[in-house]
């Protein structure tokens, strides 16, 4: 007993050292689970308001940029709106269009769209997703695991795992929420992946970030028999229900066969400029819960 005590006393610094390193390691490994219980990151109200305040100056400097971006988006939305109203006026039956719309609806996994109600499908799809606008309070691009902090939180209906987009494309996924702020895992995070489609060939792949260049990501799992070329547009697939389908991600920059593997190594220029992120939309998928519970039921039923 005395020996044990004298041992503990003699090596108390080393024991404390090991204990603190163990605790830090525990925090690092359990980062995801831990966040939910106790807000110890920049979505913490106090931390986020400090960042918000310290960003005021740079925000004013970027005001013009943000304005231009919003004006451009407004123009795009206006033209899209015009196009839509003209489509709904032509009630001519067009089998080819009907089919493609049905296909589109299937690929976008909107559960409610029937081929017959073609002119309504767009408005139904539109209602499936609600968009919560938010201002970027903090954003990093040069780390290996980047995060974005925004000024909307639980009080505004934001929940973990919702998708986040900007007018230019995919931004990331909500990781943690506090009352008035949220922490977003940026697309520029080495653990992030987004289900993506090559728009021209409808090939499914996965977007991952390698950790070095904030303007580029790589597209994985494109089989080598697929025709993919520089300039191809990459969009979200919408399969996960986190992002709406056809949200831009980027364009193909370079295609390399990956050794003797079955897949290409594809470099993608990201459509979003993460250096200039100012305003974003959090995507609320009203049917996600329904879809997930259905999936769960099916899986349970199969067992």
């Amino acid at each position, binding site marked *: 007993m005395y020996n044990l005590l004298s041992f503990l006393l003699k090596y108390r*610094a*080393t024991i404390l050292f090991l204990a603190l390193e163990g*605790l830090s390691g525990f925090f*690092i490994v359990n980062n995801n689970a831990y966040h939910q219980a106790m807000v110890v990151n*920049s979505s913490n109200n106090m931390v986020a308001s400090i960042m918000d305040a310290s960003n005021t100056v740079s925000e004013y400097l970027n005001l013009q940029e943000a304005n231009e971006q919003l004006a451009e988006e407004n123009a795009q939305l206006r033209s899209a709106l015009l196009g839509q109203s003209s489509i709904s006026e032509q009630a001519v039956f067009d089998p080819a269009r009907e089919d493609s719309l049905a296909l589109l609806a299937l690929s976008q996994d909107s559960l409610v769209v029937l081929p017959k109600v073609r002119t309504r499908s767009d408005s139904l799809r539109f209602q499936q997703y609600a968009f919560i606008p938010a201002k970027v309070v903090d954003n990093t691009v040069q780390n290996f*695991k980047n995060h974005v902090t925004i000024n909307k939180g639980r009080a505004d209906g934001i929940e973990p795992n919702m998708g986040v987009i900007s007018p230019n494309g995919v931004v990331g996924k909500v990781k943690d929420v506090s009352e008035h702020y949220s922490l977003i895992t940026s697309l520029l995070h*080495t653990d992030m992946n987004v289900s993506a489609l090559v728009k021209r060939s409808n090939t499914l792949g996965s977007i991952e970030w390698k950790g070095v260049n904030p303007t580029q990501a790589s597209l994985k799992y494109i089989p080598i028999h697929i025709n993919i070329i520089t300039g191809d547009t990459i969009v979200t697939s919408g399969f996960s229900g986190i992002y709406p389908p056809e949200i831009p991600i980027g364009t193909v920059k370079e295609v390399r066969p990956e050794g003797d593997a079955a897949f290409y190594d594809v470099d993608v220029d990201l459509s979003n400029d993460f250096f200039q992120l100012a305003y974003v939309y959090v995507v609320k998928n009203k049917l996600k819960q329904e879809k997930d519970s259905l999936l769960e039921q099916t899986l349970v039923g199969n067992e």
Partner: protein
Amino acid sequence: MGMNSRHLLPQALNFIIFFIIQILVVRKLVLFDVAFCYVYVAFLLLLPIEISVITALVFGFVTGLLVDIFYNTFGIHAAACVFIMYIRKLWIDFLTPRGGYDMGSLPSPRAQGIRWFITYAFPLLLIHHILIFFIEIGGFQLFSYTALKALASTGFSLIMILVIQYIIYSSSRRNVL
């Protein structure tokens, strides 16, 4: 031996100064996309020579966790700070000048000379930065790029730490550093 009251106020001031600079000024300062600036480590490096390893470990852990909250890296800075606080005492003993340290002196450039300080601070900063970046990426898959980040950041942090101490020292007559 704990921290005596003579050191308490200057150390508290040190903490506030370096922490505020870290969070409000240099948090988003990144040179050439690779050189990050972690000046807050200066607070830990400048703790009095005679404090016990236990005290140093606790200071390292708490400071690291506070920084982690602002960097969304919960645990990483804490782990790195605890590590350098554990080896700090050994390193200070190893660097003991002929005739030993004066009682109650600080491991600062002003008290020990700038060459001594750089010899003392550079390896500790380098180890701290290497730990930060390799733990963040979680492996050696981008070894040379991660090593470049660590090395460039160490240089940047060290220069900023020297500059900040010089500014504070020349603008105040108090015996802060």
